[in-house]
């Protein structure tokens, strides 16, 4: 940013979303948006890096040569337990938006696209396994992995193929394939790439998606809509 490599620290909290401060300029940044809200770099945006939240086994199968952050021995006893997300559900929030039956700590998958924002209840996506929807004018596809927990979002259009594909979930998990499309007859994997059919080798465009609590998503996306509500 501005020719500087910035080093960030957690420096505060704003309605339960944390603030970061960079050492180099002393500017304060909002974690969820990546925007500097105070200091010499106020108004600057960090570039979002595409990321996923996956189960370790699912990721390792895709990236066997990947590397994993090591524990820091001095702090391991303070690391979160495995069921930390169940514990977090009980922690109170300071802001709340009880709209359309939503509770503060409902887990959602949030997508911003084409100037619009939309929240997808995580449990609902897990139940449906494949969700076809629109965020503003952007067609999106949310796909549940075979592990039953990891979710990715894609643009619901096959590059180079005219018209809307008709994706549907395979009835049973087949190794390397999760869903099919009627237009090319292809099978697609969790990375959004066709493993068979006329579009074999083509990959769907990824759509950035954030797994968040409803209260936090809604606080930064005041005009968000909710899938299914």
């Amino acid at each position, binding site marked *: 940013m501005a020719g500087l*490599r*910035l*080093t*960030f*620290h*957690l*420096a*505060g*909290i*704003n*309605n*339960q979303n*944390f*603030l*970061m*401060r960079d050492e180099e300029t*002393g500017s*304060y940044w909002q*974690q969820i948006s990546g925007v500097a*809200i*105070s*200091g010499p770099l106020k108004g600057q945006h*960090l570039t979002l*890096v*595409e*990321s*996923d*939240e*996956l*189960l*370790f*086994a699912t*990721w*390792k199968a*895709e*990236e*066997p*040569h*990947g*590397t*994993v*952050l*090591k*524990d*820091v021995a001095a*702090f*391991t006893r*303070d*690391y*979160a*337990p*495995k069921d*930390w997300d169940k514990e977090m559900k009980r922690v*109170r929030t*300071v*802001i709340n938006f009880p709209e359309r039956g939503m509770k503060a700590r409902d887990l959602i998958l949030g997508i911003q696209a084409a100037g619009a924002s939309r929240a997808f209840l995580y449990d609902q996506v897990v139940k449906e396994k494949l969700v076809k929807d629109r965020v503003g004018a952007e067609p999106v596809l949310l796909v549940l992995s075979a*592990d039953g*927990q990891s979710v990715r979002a894609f643009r619901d259009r096959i590059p180079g193929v005219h018209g809307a594909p008709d994706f549907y979930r395979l009835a049973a998990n087949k190794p390397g394939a999760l869903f099919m499309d009627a237009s090319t007859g292809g099978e697609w994997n969790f990375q959004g790439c066709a493993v068979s059919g006329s579009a074999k080798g083509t990959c769907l465009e990824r759509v950035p998606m954030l797994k968040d609590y409803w209260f936090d998503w809604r606080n930064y996306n005041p005009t968000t809509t909710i899938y299914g509500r």
Partner: protein
Amino acid sequence: MTRRRLALIWLLSLAAAFLSVAYPLYVIWPFRAQGPRELAAALLVLRFRPAITVICAVVAIAALVLYWRLQKRLVWRILAVFGTACVALLAFAARVNIYELMFHHLDHPEFAAADHVKLANDEKVIVVKIGSAARAYPIRSMSYHHVANDVVGQTAIVATY
């Protein structure tokens, strides 16, 4: 310069130093809702409070020296010294961000090959891939550190949770 005026100067410097430290602490409190204006004000104070509190400390010490010469009663001298020490302490406290002490961000995170880490298959990880470099950040450790300053491939990133 009278003793009264010096005492007033000294009190004002103590008040300014105290507010510089206390106001951001009050606003940026974990389980307290923040409005955008008070947050902006608190962050502004945070940025300038090291300088503000140093000025207050210098003023307080100068006032103390003059006051000491004019004030012969021991009890008032002691009170003035104590109060000036408080201003100096506040100047020190102004340089401390409690969050940066509590949460141990990672400046030089270390990584191991996926085959060499002891993670259960159902552990949740945040993953990125830049070029051919794939990285995973376990949520159970990131939910403690919250911030990892990293370089993936040739790209400097900050992983946050």
